[in-house]
């Protein structure tokens, strides 16, 4: 599979342009954009390149609560970019119907915290649409976008990371970008992928992350993890906004002589086991970090798989530095979060095991 080519020794500085064998994206400079502007650009390109594509959800008409859909309604018209009633099961159900007729339905759920009413539609309809019909029908044109993750003050209902629920559903894909440039390319891939995709956007980065984003139409492949920092002593795996924190921990670990390899998983379902396996076979240690609560989190799947594949190469137990098993708290957020120091401590514990 393509994942095995050209990926293993690539070193890309996080938030800086790097090099890539197949893609021109990282050699080109572009405008400095934040995450919501990059996503906005991707949506403009998607709607421009396919007249049978639609963007809809709550409040997308005026630009959306996070401005990701700015300018779309004006440019493409209110019959292609429109507000929906406040009803996630309706939004996704309607999107499935549109996609089933061969359109691209790019649906926005206002916060990932509110995606659950649509869970039935996603699991029982979207994920099984092709399989149950014997491939007579499919809703591959469906892409569901939702902001996820901690934002500093979001509390229970504006901070959730629900990716683990969706990673347990055969038939859909789950993708989480780490930065503006990644988000644009990954989102375009998701939109064009012939399978229904859930795309979680780290809301913390909507304004915080700024990066040079090439202005042209480009895609970044799905189900290909990326080694964004090379190292020899321990492999760290993460996705989304957490990678920034993990990278800080890696920098500090390096000062203490620990060489960390950092991997951005990007696609959680189906995930690139081969890249992580190759890395752990080299380093002998694995640490996974995610904001979502540790129990049943996606880190458990990665841990179990790597244990199966790399048991004899492991020098220490797989470490998980994750959110705690509580609803996402407000005042206690700093205690809940998997912080740089928690990760750094875990790196040292693992290396000194």
């Amino acid at each position, binding site marked *: 599979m393509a994942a095995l080519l050209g990926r293993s020794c690539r070193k890309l500085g996080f938030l800086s342009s790097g090099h890539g064998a197949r893609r021109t994206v990282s050699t080109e400079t572009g405008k400095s954009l934040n995450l919501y502007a990059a996503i906005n650009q991707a949506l403009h390109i998607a709607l421009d390149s396919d007249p049978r594509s639609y963007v809809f959800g709550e409040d997308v008409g005026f630009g959306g609560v996070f401005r990701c859909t700015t300018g779309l309604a004006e440019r493409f018209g209110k019959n292609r970019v429109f507000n929906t009633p406040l009803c996630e099961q309706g939004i996704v159900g*309607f999107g499935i119907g549109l996609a089933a007729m061969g359109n691209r339905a790019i649906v926005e759920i206002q916060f990932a915290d509110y995606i659950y009413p649509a869970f039935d539609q996603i699991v*029982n309809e979207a994920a099984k649409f092709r399989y149950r019909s014997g491939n007579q029908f499919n809703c591959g044109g469906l892409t569901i976008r939702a902001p996820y993750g901690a934002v500093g003050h979001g509390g229970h209902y504006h901070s959730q990371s629900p990716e683990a629920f969706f990673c347990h559903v055969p038939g859909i894909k789950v993708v989480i970008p780490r930065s503006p440039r990644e988000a644009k390319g990954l989102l375009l891939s998701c939109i064009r992928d012939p399978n229904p995709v859930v795309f979680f956007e780290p809301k913390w980065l909507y304004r915080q992350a700024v990066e040079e984003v090439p202005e042209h139409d480009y895609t970044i492949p799905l189900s290909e993890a990326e080694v964004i920092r090379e190292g020899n002593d321990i492999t760290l795996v993460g996705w989304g906004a957490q990678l920034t924190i993990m990278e800080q921990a890696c920098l500090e670990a390096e000062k203490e002589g620990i060489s960390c390899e950092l991997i951005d998983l990007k696609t959680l379902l189906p995930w690139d086991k081969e890249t992580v396996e190759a890395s752990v076979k080299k380093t002998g240690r694995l640490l996974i970090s995610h904001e979502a609560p540790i129990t049943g989190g996606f880190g458990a799947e990665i841990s179990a798989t790597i244990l199966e594949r790399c048991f004899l190469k492991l020098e220490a137990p797989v470490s998980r530095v994750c959110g705690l098993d509580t609803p996402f708290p407000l005042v206690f957020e700093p205690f809940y979060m998997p912080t740089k120091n928690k990760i750094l401590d875990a790196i040292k514990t693992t290396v000194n095991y």
Partner: protein
Amino acid sequence: MALRLRSSLSKSNFLNILLRHNNLGFGTASHTTRVSQNPISRFCNTMAEKLSSVGEHEDANAQVMDFPGGKVAFTPEIKFISESSKERVPCYRVLDDNGKLITNSHFVQVSEEVAVKMYSDMVTLQIMDNIFYEAQRQGRLSFYATTIGEEAINIASAAALSPQDVIFPQYREPGVLLWRGFTLQEFANQCFGNKSDNGKGRQMPVHYGSNKLNYFTVSATIATQLPNAVGAAYSLKMDKKDACAVTYFGDGGSSEGDFHAALNFAAVMEAPVLFICRNNGWAISTPTSDQFRSDGLVVKGRAYGIRSIRVDGNDALAMYSAVHTAREMAISEERPILIEALTYRVGHHSTSDDSTRYRSADEIEWWNKARNPLSRFRTWIESNGWWSDEEESDLRSRIKKEMLEALRVAEKTEKPNLENMFSDVYDVPPLNLREQERQVRQTIKSHPQDYPSDVPL
């Protein structure tokens, strides 16, 4: 309008946002590039307009109030809208209980050819149901669900549609497929999950689907198809097709959240979709009195701004006429229509159910005999000279023979190859599935006795 916006520029941020999006047009209808055919613009006004003239010359009681959503008259009395009308919404029918045309009834004329095909297909559906049901009882099929009592809804609605109208069924509408040309063999293939099944053996019996016949594959989840149908209808509208989406559901399905979601979306999106409710009195063992407290389904349409009609679902001619009329409205006016077809579920919910445990055998028998949709329509077509006893017995013996043959062939046709377990989960099997297939194949080699011998590897 523009003048007023500018003059109130300083008054609110909301207005500033509007100005920024000034091409969107304020107060224009939403989802078409031209002005909507539907007079909803009166609901689009979210600004309180300054009512300079009102109240000066008029009687205080005739004053109106202005809120987002538009103007409303006010009343100084505490008046509740009653939870139900005194009279139930009347039910449209054209043939009386004996199949005689009711004088002065309005209906859409149907040709002899169409009427005979309608009746023949109703008979075929009935025979197919009985034979499949018996086959399950004999252990030849794992499961089955009949459509007995609802043949007129199935066939007559299908007859009133065009082949390009896309169908989103629940699971008690195989007659629509039958009308469109799905063969008895194809039904049997799906029920046996053999290699000729369109669905590749993945689902339980009666979960039919056919892209050739524009019939989306059945999923057992209740009412999930309703919002899907609305999206499909919107697609048809945007592609300017002379077609609509049609979705079926039962009285039970109307309690699901997806029903509410779908109707609301359909109205707002001005989607050409027909919502056909088979109100057959039962959701497994739950009678409608435990399902809702409204006057059935027909009154719910208005709550969403949807035009609705109640029809005698056992009157094939009325069903045909209602669906035909609704379809034209839906497409030409770009609107959803709700059709409540009153009927009775004569059969059990499925082969896993014995409905005599919760309703009397007499009740079932009465509906089967006295209110049978087939006999009423038969009387009507015979009265036109379009049918005879001889044609009846010829048809029935022919269909029975065909069905038994279809069963026999389907039963002995081999199952789909094992690789079909892993394909179509995604467009292309990902690595984890390829690995799992390898593992399963190895396990089969070690323990062949654990696996059914009729699934080719």
